[in-house]
């Protein structure tokens, strides 16, 4: 690729991660510490929080103030919405989805987790594994985040004790077996003092594992993408209608998963038409091959009728085509779910009306028990529902494909996004 002629900063990887922890776990302090120690904080920002810390009568610079953006949050001292932060090392650029950890904000955690490749789960070393730890881990598993780093924070308040660290680690592993998380790591830290965040701790010599930053910088993310199942949801049809490109008819979209090559035989859904890829275009250039996450424009050998919402796939590897959908969900709105209610299902680039047929169960996210009797669903609740759609949907299971396996429900009267869904 052309990028290879540049080295260093033009050739970095991107890692998106989310952080979960409650008000007192020191999450904002940890993020402040990552930003500060990686030199992502500038002098004017530092001066602003020094002034603000002094104004609040605090003795030391409160790194948490770096991430508390909105006025209401500074007044109440809590984070109330998902905020995005950025920092970089020579190797990687990081996007943090910073989400609050209180019970009423499950929906924000789900939102932050939906685009993350990695989750940091914070545990207060004094309290150990708490209800919320289970909740956060469950959400990470439900949203299929491939990597989880459990940070045992506030080690300074338990005398940097190895025994305490081991106790918490084994307790966590006991219940983690129930979850579907592929990669779990543990790091003992003190976000306040900076132990094992960016620099190695001098007070925890018993720990010979990597620092949090080292893990973030090196954890292998190359296999997180699904490169097996070729899926291309069509976003727009490009018809230049000028002299030079008179007959050009291109299908623009972002490859959801898999690999497409020029000359590949492909199938169009829903028509079932079979044709070949004539070209894969990206602004004045044509590619021989394009992979998951690339935004491209495809032209096809045959003149087929294709519009937004259609999907281009491989002939011998197609998604499930069905009008009956079974999905895990998180309810995002204060207006409760209505069984037999009509909603709009948005999935990749398609949109279709649907009816919620049944609530199969809801999950108590504090002890993971399923409740099949109580069918009332309101904000922040998680469970499993079945839907019937007006037209067939081309979907994969969320476990196999986070793009073609996810959907949202939109309320027809308020236009709000009220539900996040993951196909079973």
């Amino acid at each position, binding site marked *: 690729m052309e*990028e290879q002629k540049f080295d260093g*900063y*033009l*050739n*970095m*990887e*991107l890692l998106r991660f989310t952080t979960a922890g409650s008000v007192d776990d020191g999450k904002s302090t940890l993020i402040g510490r990552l930003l500060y120690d990686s030199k992502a904080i*500038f*002098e*004017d*920002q530092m001066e*602003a929080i020094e002034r*603000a810390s002094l104004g609040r009568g605090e003795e030391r610079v409160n790194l948490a103030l770096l*991430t*508390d*953006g*909105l*006025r209401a949050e500074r007044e109440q001292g809590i984070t109330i*919405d998902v*905020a*995005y*932060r*950025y920092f*970089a090392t020579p190797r*990687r650029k990081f996007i943090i989805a910073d989400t609050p950890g209180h019970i009423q904000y499950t929906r*924000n955690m*789900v*939102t932050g987790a*939906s*685009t993350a490749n990695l989750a940091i789960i914070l545990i207060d070393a004094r309290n150990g594994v708490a209800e919320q730890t289970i909740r956060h881990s469950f959400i990470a598993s439900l949203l299929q985040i491939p990597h989880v780093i459990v940070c045992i924070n506030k080690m300074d308040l338990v005398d940097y004790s190895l025994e305490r660290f081991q106790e918490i680690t084994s307790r966590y592993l006991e219940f983690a077996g129930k979850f579907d998380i592929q990669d779990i790591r543990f790091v003992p830290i003190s976000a306040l003092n900076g132990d094992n965040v960016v620099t190695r701790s001098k007070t925890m010599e018993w720990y010979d594992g990597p620092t949090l930053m080292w893990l973030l910088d090196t954890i292998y993310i*190359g296999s997180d993408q699904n490169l097996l199942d070729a899926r291309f949801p069509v*976003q727009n049809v*490009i*018809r*230049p*209608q*000028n002299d*030079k*490109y008179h007959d050009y008819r291109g299908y*623009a979209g*972002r490859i959801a998963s898999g*690999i497409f090559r020029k000359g590949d035989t492909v199938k169009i859904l829903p028509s079932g038409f079979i044709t070949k890829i004539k070209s894969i275009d990206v*602004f004045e250039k044509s590619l021989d091959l394009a*992979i998951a*996450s*690339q*935004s491209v*424009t495809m032209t096809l050998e045959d003149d087929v009728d294709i519009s*937004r919402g259609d999907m281009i796939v491989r002939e011998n590897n197609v998604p499930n085509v069905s009008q009956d959908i079974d999905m895990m969900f998180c309810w*995002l709105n204060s207006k409760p779910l209505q069984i037999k209610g009509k909603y709009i299902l*948005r*999935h990749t*680039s398609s949109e279709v009306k649907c009816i919620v047929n049944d609530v199969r169960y809801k999950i108590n996210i504090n002890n993971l028990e399923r409740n099949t009797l109580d069918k009332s669903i309101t904000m922040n609740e998680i469970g499993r529902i079945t839907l019937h759609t007006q037209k067939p949907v081309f979907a994969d299971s969320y476990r196999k494909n986070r*793009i073609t396996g*996810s959907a*949202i429900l939109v309320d027809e009267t308020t*236009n*709000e*996004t009220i539900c*996040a869904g993951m196909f079973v």
Partner: protein
Amino acid sequence: MKNYKITHLRELENESIYVIREVVAQFEKPTMLFSGGKDSIIMFHLARKAFWPAKVPFPLLHIDTGHNFQETLDYRDGLMKETGTTCIVSLVQDSIDSGRVVEETGVNASRNKLQTVTLLDAIEKNKFDCAMGGGRRDEEKARAKERFFSHRDEFGQWDPKNQRPELWNIFNGKKRIGEHFRVFPISNWTEMDVWQYILLENIPIPNLYFNHKRKVFNRDGVWLAYAPFMQLKPNEKVEEKDVRCRTIGDITCTGVTLSKASTLEEIIKEIAATRITERGGRADDKRSETAMEDRKKEGYF
């Protein structure tokens, strides 16, 4: 498998193109705000990429404070001609003349805040249902919470406590008549990413971003470009310095950096070493700790 790696700049590019295409698919009459600054330049470049070989299928909108760097206007006009794109210009002066806003007075007078009214009027007059902006979440703490698709009520206002959740890459642009959306396709870019991308793609930018000699004066530690309509305080004196712009906005509130950087590589090196944020030179943000949040609620970019 090594060839299948996508770099951070291409990842950001793919995401932004996807967002711009969603806007065209979901809205009837979108526009893209264009100021001639580097962020709007790369956003427009991404829009050209998104629809090539077709032209960009929407007009641009420039909210003109009248206090511009002339180089920016020349650059804008040249680019529109070259790419065959329409740019609608709405003048803050018209909002002042019609009594919709009152010009600020005093030494710190700026038309930056007045742009909000001109912008909302332009959206209403042209019946735009979506305005894309070059805002980035790394710029300022209130922007860090902004969605890609940001819903505005019929008064053009932003309610930070009632934002729609945004999951995966599914964007919900549904709205009632009279409401509109602001969409920020380059939300996830940092200042460094923008410069690296300009270098990678070899995108022409106004000369203001490179080293040049300019009449400047120092106010509260920030170097401001001098223009004849600006009032000086008694202790301020105009001098000529080697400078470059880190951001380009209204001339009255855009700080310049003392710099000899004259190539993109030199600018990138300078930014990597710098210890002040790019908005550190923006007098409009210094008015109070929540200046940006307050302006955004009223309908600012």
